């Protein structure tokens, strides 16, 4: 179980500091695929960096703590300060742009051998790597290639192979398929799901495509303007979302065979520079009332294992615009 307790991440800038993640508390059970969704700038990637322990200036963990629930070799619990020593072995990261993450002047095989903590016998490591990438559907020749000689899908598979090679307890995937087309995307997502099933570890998947989340995840976290606004089992979140923002996210994309007009979500998230009072979604929310603008809603458990931060949680959005009551 990973526990985030009131985590605040701030970026120092010339104009003062700004909180990109502002008081997020979560408990993520082991062995789940947690999807993280929200618009650009809502804090998804910053949250990933925090959990990964990649906290570098100008970003800082301003408040709160993260417990990973796993111990190191000496039985000490691993914290956000020490997690960096366990990169790749206990926790790993699949970035969005594989091209920018692989070293362009080193062959793929050599990049595998460079892992910190890998067996010093390089031949043996390469042997294991060769066997492993075969299982992921990559030809052995991939190891002799330079990154630019591979297609985007193959490079992403190489990144997944690297991230899963040591069977880490936790894998963070930040938009792993956004740069790929649909056919390759499906392959990569299916591969991730299969690996998760074999290894039983936890995956955190960031994506802004709700379709991807529906296909892959078992739990969902929806973020809006640096806050967690909904968290729960995917089944429940997709069947009956509690927060109006979640409902709008799910409804914003068209589906084949459905000719209803889609509008997207009008307006834009509030600037985090200004002082924010009440619910941060109130300005774009069709259900907003005076209470929403003055009192900030807390993340409350409305159904078993299904949390939302909304004063009007569960009220239906009528297609005609006005709110209808459930």
């Amino acid at each position, binding site marked *: 179980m990973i526990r985030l307790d009131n985590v605040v991440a701030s970026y120092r800038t010339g104009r003062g500091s700004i909180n990109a993640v502002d008081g997020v508390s979560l408990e993520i059970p082991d062995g789940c695929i947690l999807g993280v969704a929200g618009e650009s700038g809502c804090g998804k990637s910053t949250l990933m960096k925090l959990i990964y322990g990649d906290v570098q200036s100008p970003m800082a963990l301003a408040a709160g703590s993260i417990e990973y629930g796993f111990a190191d070799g000496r039985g000490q619990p691993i914290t956000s300060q020490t997690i960096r020593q366990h990169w790749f072995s206990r926790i790993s990261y699949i970035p969005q742009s594989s091209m920018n993450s692989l070293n362009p002047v080193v062959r793929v095989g050599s990049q595998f051998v460079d892992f910190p903590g890998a067996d010093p016998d390089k031949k043996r490591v390469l042997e294991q790597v060769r066997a492993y990438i075969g299982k992921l559907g990559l030809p052995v020749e991939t190891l002799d290639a330079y990154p630019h000689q591979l297609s985007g899908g193959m490079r992403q598979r190489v990144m997944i192979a690297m991230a899963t090679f040591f069977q880490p307890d936790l894998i963070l995937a930040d938009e792993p398929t956004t740069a790929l087309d649909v056919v390759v995307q499906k392959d990569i997502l299916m591969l991730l799901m299969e690996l998760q099933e074999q290894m039983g570890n936890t995956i955190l998947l960031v994506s802004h495509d709700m*379709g991807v989340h529906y296909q892959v995840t078992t739990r969902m976290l929806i973020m809006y303007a640096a806050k967690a606004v909904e968290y729960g089992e995917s089944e429940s979140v997709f069947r009956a979302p509690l927060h109006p923002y979640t409902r709008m996210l799910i409804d*914003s994309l068209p*589906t084949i065979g459905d000719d209803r007009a889609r509008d*997207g979500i009008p307006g834009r998230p509030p600037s985090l520079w200004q002082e924010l009072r009440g619910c941060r979604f109130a300005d774009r929310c069709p259900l907003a009332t005076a209470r929403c603008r003055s009192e900030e809603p807390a993340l409350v458990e409305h159904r078993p294992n299904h949390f939302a931060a909304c004063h009007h949680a569960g009220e239906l959005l009528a297609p005609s615009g006005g709110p209808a009551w459930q």
Partner: protein
Amino acid sequence: MAVILRTEGLNKVYRLGSFTRSREIRALNDVNLNVESDTPVIVSVVGESGSGKTTLAKTLLRLVQPSSGRATIYDRVVAGPGVRGIDKQFLAAVQPIFQNPFEAFSRYRTVDSYLHETAIRVAGHDRAGATDASAKALAAVGLDYADVRGKYTNQFSGGELQRVSIARALIPGPSLIVADEPVSMIDASRRMIIINLFRRLKEEAGRSFLYITHDLATAYYISDYVAVMSKGTLVEFGPARQVMADPQHAYTRLLLDSIPTTRTRWRPRKAAA
């Protein structure tokens, strides 16, 4: 009926590698496409990366010379035998929108200077008229000229900047707008604003669109016709609803099966195989 878009035996071969060890890539392989209509249409070209859809767009925009074949837009030959040089008439009739607006505009220039330049050089306005035309085009995409003037690209969100680039394309009053992956860089929750804008421009201003995408769901949502491309070949073409409801080609079915929807879940690969 007017020919909106026609390609006849369009081929494009790229050569890679050195003089002695060259390799050929057929980006377009005998592409024959014919769209005739009296009303404006939105034609989508879908396919995965490397299917030749961008090469097709570039050929129509005259950024790429075809190896053989001919392309016609609104009864005017734009590529192949019988083509005339690029003139104002062509620039005014066919306008592009590119994938990444942050790359389409320079970081070191204000974006309204692009609007002005298009209005003066392509649409033939004078200075005062150019400002008017820019304001009108921005209003058509839901932006205010006062909010755009004097700003640089980093002061816009991706969706806003893409709307500015649509406004720029609208200034000369083109009959066809070629949009190459116009929403793939834009946040999913705001994609529909751009997509709905295309539809409105078609219905109200009478613009036709060639919409290049790998997102079949939005293609279904706005298109009148869909062309499916795979490895440089046009594998299926027809009215959008017909193609998506009853795909004839195996590749179209593969594309449709790969879309992550919120309706039905993918079956595990082992069970599917």
